[in-house]
């Protein structure tokens, strides 16, 4: 009897190759071996091929003189004096510039279109819907080429520039704007602006604390506007308008002075903003629809007016749904800015993976660095997103 019991308690005998544990380890070993073999094969082939075509390896090229010009540089750069490393930073900054501005414009346009799609005005809802359906179903590259070749490059040439009131010029070489130049005394305005920001934050904190303590509300919006805009403006007037403009001068073959906005930049910015806005509009619409009607009805029955209902009840809940997909749209916009290479805007890919790669031939290093930059941007964003999500997640029981 007892021997029978102990026999039953012993685990059933399985041949070792049918043991799930053994199998899982074996599968993983085989997989790792395959990956290692692939990597080894690729690496040894690469070394062979590079040696045969006499291409240097390593990152020594970083400090060599670049020798090519870049049409838009935010930091100092000269073809003769600057290195490939400098060209990399120029390209990266150009990418970040167009991505940053694109995000701002796409967000504004996207929110307007997304809310319009839910409008009770039938015509507005249909127009917004038509915009989203059309733009989303056309390739971004096609839109960029259209803006660049069919719109901006079709503008009149430099001698027949369109003069825009206020001293700006528009032609097929770009958009020439007056450049603000600060005169003596402008420092006071900057100080006033800084002081305004600090005071606005302080007022917000104080108003919040007071409201939590006593329930009294303060006109935060108006005070903030007065501090941020009114104060610097007042100082600006008092110090006697210490700001001048350097106007672009139209010559026969060239326009000198002022700020030049390249048509490549403008086309990329238009294309990215308009394209991403269509996706953001869908995100916004889904977010607002996700807040159930009962929420606003409950707020009304508590006696809140439509404005505060939207601001205090609907929008905070909609933002919880909107922000994660919104961030991924921002990431898409940043990654899509690499299409700049098709219209010749000097972004990271065009400058580095394009020109630097062609000049040095060091494909592995150059492509790896480029990918690393985008990976760092993506991973940093998704890290922030995860932190945000865990803070915003509904506290469930």
């Amino acid at each position, binding site marked *: 009897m007892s021997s029978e019991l102990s026999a039953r308690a012993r685990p059933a005998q399985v041949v070792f190759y049918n043991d799930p544990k053994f199998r899982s380890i074996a599968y993983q070993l085989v997989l790792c071996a395959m*990956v290692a073999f692939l990597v080894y094969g690729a690496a040894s*082939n690469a070394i062979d091929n590079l040696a045969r075509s006499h291409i240097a390896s390593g990152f020594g090229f970083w400090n060599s003189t670049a020798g090519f010009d870049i049409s838009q540089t935010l930091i100092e750069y000269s073809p003769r004096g600057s290195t490939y490393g400098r060209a990399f930073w120029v390209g990266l900054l150009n990418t970040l510039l167009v991505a940053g501005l694109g995000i701002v414009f796409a967000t504004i346009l996207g929110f307007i279109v997304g809310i319009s799609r839910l409008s009770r005005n039938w015509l507005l809802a249909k127009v917004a819907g038509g915009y989203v359906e059309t733009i989303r179903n*056309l390739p971004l590259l096609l839109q960029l*080429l259209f803006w660049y070749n069919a719109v901006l490059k079709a503008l009149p040439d430099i001698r027949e520039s369109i003069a825009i009131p206020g001293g700006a010029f528009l032609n097929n070489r770009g958009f020439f704007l007056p450049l603000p130049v600060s005169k003596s005394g402008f420092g006071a305005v900057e100080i006033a602006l800084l002081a305004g920001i600090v005071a606005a934050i302080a007022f917000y904190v104080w108003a919040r604390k007071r409201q939590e303590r006593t329930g009294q509300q303060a006109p935060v919006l108006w005070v903030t506007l007065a501090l941020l805009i009114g104060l610097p403006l007042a100082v600006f007037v008092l110090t006697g308008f210490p700001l001048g403009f350097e106007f672009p001068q139209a010559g026969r073959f060239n326009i000198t002075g002022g700020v030049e906005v390249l048509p490549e930049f403008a086309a990329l910015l238009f294309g990215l903003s308009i394209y991403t806005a269509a996706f953001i509009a869908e995100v916004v619409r889904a977010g607002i629809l996700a807040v159930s009607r009962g929420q606003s009805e409950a707020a009304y029955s508590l006696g809140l007016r439509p404005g505060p209902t939207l601001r205090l009840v609907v929008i905070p809940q909609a933002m919880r749904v909107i922000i994660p997909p919104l961030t991924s749209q921002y990431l898409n916009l940043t*990654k899509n800015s690499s299409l700049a290479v098709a219209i010749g805007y000097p972004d990271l890919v065009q400058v580095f993976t394009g020109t630097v790669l062609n000049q040095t031939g060091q494909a592995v290093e150059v492509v790896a660095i480029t*990918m690393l930059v985008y*990976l760092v941007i993506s991973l940093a964003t998704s890290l922030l997103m995860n932190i945000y999500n865990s803070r915003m997640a509904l506290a469930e029981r």
Partner: protein
Amino acid sequence: MTMAEGDLAVAELAFVRRTNIAPRPPPAAMTGAVGWLRENLLSTPFNVGLTIVIVLLLAWAVPELVKFLLIDAVWSGTDRDACLESVQHREIGACWPFVWERLPYFIYGSYPIPQRWRVDVFLAMLAIGVVWLLWLNAPRRDLGAIYFFVILPIASFILLTGWAAIGLQPVDTVLWGGVLVTIVVASVGIVVSLPIGILLALGRRSHMPAVRTLSVIFIEFVRGVPLVTVLFMAGVMLPLFVPEQLSPDKLVRALIGIAIFASAYMAEVVRAGLQAIPKGQYEGAMAVGLRYWQMMRLIILPQALKVTIPNIVNTYIGLFKDTTLVFIVGIFDLLRTIEVARIDPKWATPVTSTTGYAVAAIFYLVFCYGMSRYARAMEARLAKSDRR
């Protein structure tokens, strides 16, 4: 007082009506076209303003578009003179003769003219496969899947690249172009990304740490970088990684890049589907003694893929639009053939570019919009079957 007496009392009262009043029609201003206008366009002063602005905007934009595409358009001609304002002395819209003349180039690229029937056959075979798979009531859809994922790729490879042994003259991929390349790139992405995406999704949910880590690294890496850089990687790094004599041609390299990229995105879509399957399904499958692959093939994947069909189609729309990026690595897809044709001196006019882009826009709009309608119809169908 009994019940009957009470009824009688009410019935005798002269001022109580015994019949219902027929309902009166609602006020004229609340129904019909007028009511609809008031409700949907003119409900508040703000809405009236919005409506006026939009009507003005449409009244400006729509006639301009019609004028450009139809009224002012040039319909026949042999070269740029037909579409030049300075020659024709009138306003010129779209230059359609340019499109008529270049249409074969937009469709076939430089594919040898006597061999172009092969492209036609390929497109017809593809159309059959697509209809077979998408039409849910089609007979033998299992055969359709085999046809689409096994027979079609092999047959079209032989048909398009050629095979001297059966009398098909080999055609170098350098000569391929236009719609042909766009469709080939999109179909390879579609056919390859689904199986690899499923494997990666299963890998990411696997209990084996090595499998999971490798899947996560692959998926997150590819999704973190732009497609352009993946194409550059496939274009310039791949030839370094293989022995010189095996170096793939340009089109194949781009196809590999697209396949890698599409698989990573597909993996995340499938993973979302897998996560939507309740745990009980896995446990039930294991309880009846199914092995891992049996469980996946018979229980989990059929359910998971069914709920993800709309998302899969949406991914395919993205992929279809992304095929234009092969343009950047020097492959003659539809967009690039248009780019090349529009700067050809024979047709170079101020309106040629816009005409060319309009053709591309119509092509992509028709395909992508069609796919998105299909996805939406599937979504509605799934929602209906869920409600039971």
